[in-house]
């Protein structure tokens, strides 16, 4: 637990001999109930053990669901409120709750972060993070390929706060640098774009951030900390839609932000103002789901590579987008940045355009035709009428969303079953 006082300054206060340099409180990782980071362990071990709070009173194994909105106040909590360190005390569940702290510590362990916050949705995490970090008059450089919800927030809402955005290519570092102006404060990109799986050059973005004194914020939803730990590459803050791979069971909406305690502490008051604290029951679901996170990601990655390889060889498939394939435009960067962990997402174009794409989705027996991604079950959809629906046709073409493009989130089913299902489904389109 955090230090409760300022270490030996109480007696100096009365005669007025205390000054700011006497204050003793330093930033520590957390907030946390106990030290349970498993920092030197692998992701499988972290997924299972980190952050777990075994109840000392009953001996119950596993973090209990602290389904309460409020907590008993006492002199310690009053003192914390007075001194502005309410984030480290249990006061009210919108401010903090043991269920939140438990899953946040697991996430911090997996992200190699000092601190994390869980939100009610990915968009709650993204909007609160950006509003907290941006100053009045700030400018953001982001990507045209960005998730529709984030695009709408940047494009429709920033100017209400006297802020602005320029959208660039997510891969062309020269175009990104050219978009930086005097008031640019944040470079905001997705590590792997939706749906064409373009790879943001993270090391170069971090170098640009240092050159221009900016903050780099990366949405790592498509890759997750299992595939790439963004903070290890020098990114300031990493956000995730926890709805996707982190939870992995398509039964929860959530979002996360992780980074230094200094920056995450600045996002916390924005969370309090915007709302969007994750409910304790959702925290329990997320923390339990994360226990199998590393296992699931291994299966997603290997199934996706196998299925992408199969689809690329299929004569009726025009093009496959997958970073693990040599045909990917940035395969060399993928090898360096993703190190063989290429995600569970595939996009591909089928012969015959959107008509055959729709037919394929109907023919498939295993993948569910639904938006979202990262679930244990394969999910399949057409980006033009789901995730990228807010873009005009022309804008869709600009970022490369062609007729017949299908986005597939490869689940953890047996790969032989998935390949057989695609085989029969494609065959039936062209032979009936």
């Amino acid at each position, binding site marked *: 637990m955090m230090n409760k006082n300022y270490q030996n300054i109480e007696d100096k206060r009365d005669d*007025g001999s205390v000054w*700011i340099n006497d204050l003793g409180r330093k930033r520590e990782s957390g907030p946390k109930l106990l030290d349970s980071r498993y920092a030197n362990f692998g992701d499988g071990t972290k997924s299972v053990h980190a952050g777990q709070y075994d109840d000392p009173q009953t001996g119950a194994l596993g973090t209990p669901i602290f389904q309460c909105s409020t907590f008993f106040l006492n002199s310690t909590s009053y003192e914390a409120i007075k001194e*502005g360190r309410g984030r480290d005390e249990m006061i009210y569940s919108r401010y903090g709750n043991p269920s939140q702290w438990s899953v946040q510590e697991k996430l911090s362990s997996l992200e190699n972060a000092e601190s994390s916050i869980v939100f009610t949705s990915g968009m709650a995490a993204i909007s609160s993070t950006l509003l907290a970090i941006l*100053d009045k008059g700030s400018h953001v450089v982001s990507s045209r390929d960005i998730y529709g919800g984030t695009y709408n927030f940047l494009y429709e809402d920033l100017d209400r706060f006297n802020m602005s955005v320029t959208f660039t290519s997510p891969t062309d570092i020269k175009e990104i640098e050219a978009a930086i102006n005097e008031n640019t404060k944040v470079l905001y990109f997705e590590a792997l774009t939706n749906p064409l799986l373009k790879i943001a050059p993270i090391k170069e973005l971090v170098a640009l951030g240092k050159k221009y004194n900016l903050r780099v914020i990366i949405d790592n939803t498509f890759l997750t900390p299992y595939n790439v730990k963004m903070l290890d590459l020098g990114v300031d803050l990493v956000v995730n839609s926890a709805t996707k791979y982190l939870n992995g069971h398509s039964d929860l909406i959530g979002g996360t932000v992780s980074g230094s305690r200094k920056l995450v502490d600045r996002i916390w008051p924005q969370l309090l103002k915007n709302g969007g604290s994750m409910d304790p029951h959702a925290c329990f679901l997320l923390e339990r789901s994360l226990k199998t996170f590393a296992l699931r990601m291994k299966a997603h990655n290997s199934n996706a590579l196998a299925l992408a390889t199969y689809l690329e060889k299929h004569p009726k498939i025009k093009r496959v987008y997958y970073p693990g394939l040599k045909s990917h435009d940035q395969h060399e960067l993928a090898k360096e940045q993703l190190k063989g962990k290429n995600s569970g997402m595939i996009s591909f174009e089928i012969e015959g355009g959107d008509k055959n794409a729709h037919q394929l989705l109907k023919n498939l027996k295993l993948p569910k035709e639904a938006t979202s991604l990262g679930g244990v079950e394969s999910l399949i959809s057409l980006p033009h009428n789901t995730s990228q629906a807010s873009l005009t046709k022309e804008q869709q073409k600009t970022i490369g969303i062609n007729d017949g493009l299908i986005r597939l989130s490869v689940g953890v089913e047996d790969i032989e079953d998935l390949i057989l299902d695609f085989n029969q489904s494609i065959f039936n389109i062209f032979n009936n």
Partner: protein
Amino acid sequence: MLNNINLSGLSEYANEVKQNNVQGKASYGVILNWESGTKTTVSTKNMILGEHKLVRDFNFIIDEPTQLLGVNCAPNPAEYLLGGLAGCMAVTFMAGATAMNIEVEQLKLEIDGELDLQGFLGINTDVEVGFPALNFIFHVKGNGSQEQYDALMKRVSKHSPNFNTIKNEVKMIGILAV
């Protein structure tokens, strides 16, 4: 929060700067544009605090009273100077008061000075062009003791950046760009 100042945040920042002095470096700047007559507008330049940019999207107008040939639409440079000084002294006082656990109900700071405009007008080269003296009064209501307030007054003169900029000799390095 006591006095609506986050003392934990202040403590954490102070300790961050202790460990990494760069985080205490703050660059400031303004750009002034002459509008017309005695009226000018000032916009604040972006800051760099530590290693990161802070966007400072603010501006303000400066003018002179009509008696001094302005149109009296905004405070004059001397008033901004005294206001900037008072603001800085107030922040320093309040940060210190909060560290001392003093709950302040009211803080009012008066600063007064007299300029002899003979210096500006070039009539008498023997007079001081700037303020020869500034008088300030802290009006404080709170639960602090006399001893604590006396200590705070000393701390303000020791730690307030604007106070020290005015009190100390500052190198003024000017160039002309035509």
